[in-house]
């Protein structure tokens, strides 16, 4: 029996293990102390990611509180993902990708019309996934805020130029997130095909929760 390399180094027992198909949403409750591992199975697949406090979902991930608290835009090993109350929601326990993005936001049908043209309005988009998943639990459009893009690379040049560029991830690379409170994780496995965030080819990712 061959060992599952995607479980390597993950302590505790696996309590949830799912493949999120390309282009699909995913919602899961992760308890404080549990670790969520996201595996970029085929490489350069953006995983758009939001968090809500399970106790009070008006408390949610805040990109701005997170980057201000650490004085840096990039999410690396040790980054504490903070809420709009400034509280730790999850910590990046480890990652085999150097850094992840939290300024690029999520693609939407509407922003696609700006970035690429109105011919892309009918394409599936991350905000559609965020809405569909959140609606299951009574959240809606007001609950969608600036998100994290795991495995996505958005550098900022000295003149302020920025853009989603070729990823720095590769097949099998992963990120481990330790829950600091009971959280609701909402993910869009990004369906974008008009920029390099998914290598122009959306692919599945694996979600493993260990307790």
């Amino acid at each position, binding site marked *: 029996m061959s060992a599952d390399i995607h479980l390597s180094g993950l302590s505790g027992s696996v309590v949830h293990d799912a493949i999120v198909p390309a282009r699909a949403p995913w919602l899961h409750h992760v308890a404080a102390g549990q670790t969520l591992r996201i595996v970029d199975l085929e490489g350069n697949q953006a995983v758009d990611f939001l968090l809500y406090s399970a106790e009070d979902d008006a408390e949610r991930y805040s990109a*701005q509180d997170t980057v201000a*608290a650490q004085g840096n835009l990039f999410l690396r090993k040790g980054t504490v993902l903070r809420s709009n109350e400034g509280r730790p929601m999850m910590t990046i326990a480890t990652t085999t990708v150097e850094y992840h993005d939290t*300024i690029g936001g999520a693609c939407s049908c509407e922003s696609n019309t*700006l970035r690429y043209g109105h011919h892309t309005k009918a394409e599936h988009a991350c905000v559609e996934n965020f809405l569909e998943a959140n609606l299951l639990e009574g959240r809606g459009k007001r609950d969608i805020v600036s*998100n994290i893009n795991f495995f996505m690379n958005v550098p900022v040049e000295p003149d302020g130029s920025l853009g989603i560029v070729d990823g720095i991830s590769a097949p099998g690379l992963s990120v481990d997130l330790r829950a600091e409170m009971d959280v609701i994780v909402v993910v869009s496995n990004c369906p974008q095909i008009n920029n390099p965030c998914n290598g122009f080819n959306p692919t599945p990712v694996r979600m493993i929760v260990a307790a």
Partner: protein
Amino acid sequence: MTANLANPMAARDHARGMAGKVAEAMPVLPPVAVDLPDGVSSDDLLWEETIASGGYATRRLARGARLRLIDLRGDACASLLVFNAELPTERLNVADTVKVQWNAYLGAGKLLLSDMGRVLMSFLEDGAGTHDSFCGTSNPGSNAAKYGNGANSGPTPSGRDRFLLGVAKHGLQRRDVHPCVNLFKGARIEADGRIVPQIGPFAPERSLTLRAEMDVIVVIANCPHVLDPRKDYSVTPLRATAWRGPITPTDDPVRTATPEGLRAFENVEDYFRR
């Protein structure tokens, strides 16, 4: 004093005796501004208010209105939320604002984009050049850690809590306080992602002018920048002036500056096609 105010009429006279008092931070009704730009009639003046250090203000502005903000003494920080007044579930999207414009730094000619692919406001003029689309504003915890208190009821309220009160006055809730932009205080980004705040204090009287491209609600908090390194709560008053203006014409240079921006204006024009 208490004895003199023991009956309602005496209390009324005491209250009425305050009429005509002037404070630095206050609205002027009807609005008066002696420094409107050339060609702007005082008849078109909509709003004149000086926002206190640590204070906030909100306003509904019609499409075409201009909003001028002046950092009167060089140490204001205008943290800004913007909503579509008609349907406030549509609001400023900071990520789309920087991503769609392929640039992180706000300034003249830049757009503030909504989460529905439309332009809410545009920058007509910018005499400051130091703005921040990344850091957001202080929260009660960060102000408590820095200044010993972060409550609205205390001496050093947080921008986030000023936002809560501001949005509430338009029927909105906690979950409507979205990521903001900061005007007059800046943030520059190093190659390794490090945030370098630009806190000043700066020269007095720096100003900028925004144009409402839709009917909007603006919520402005004037609290120290969240990465202000100073130990004391340092912030000075912010002046807001608004006047009526024409809806952006099709040949407007801000409208036509980039293909992405042009499509954001076309989406606005489509929204108002009714």
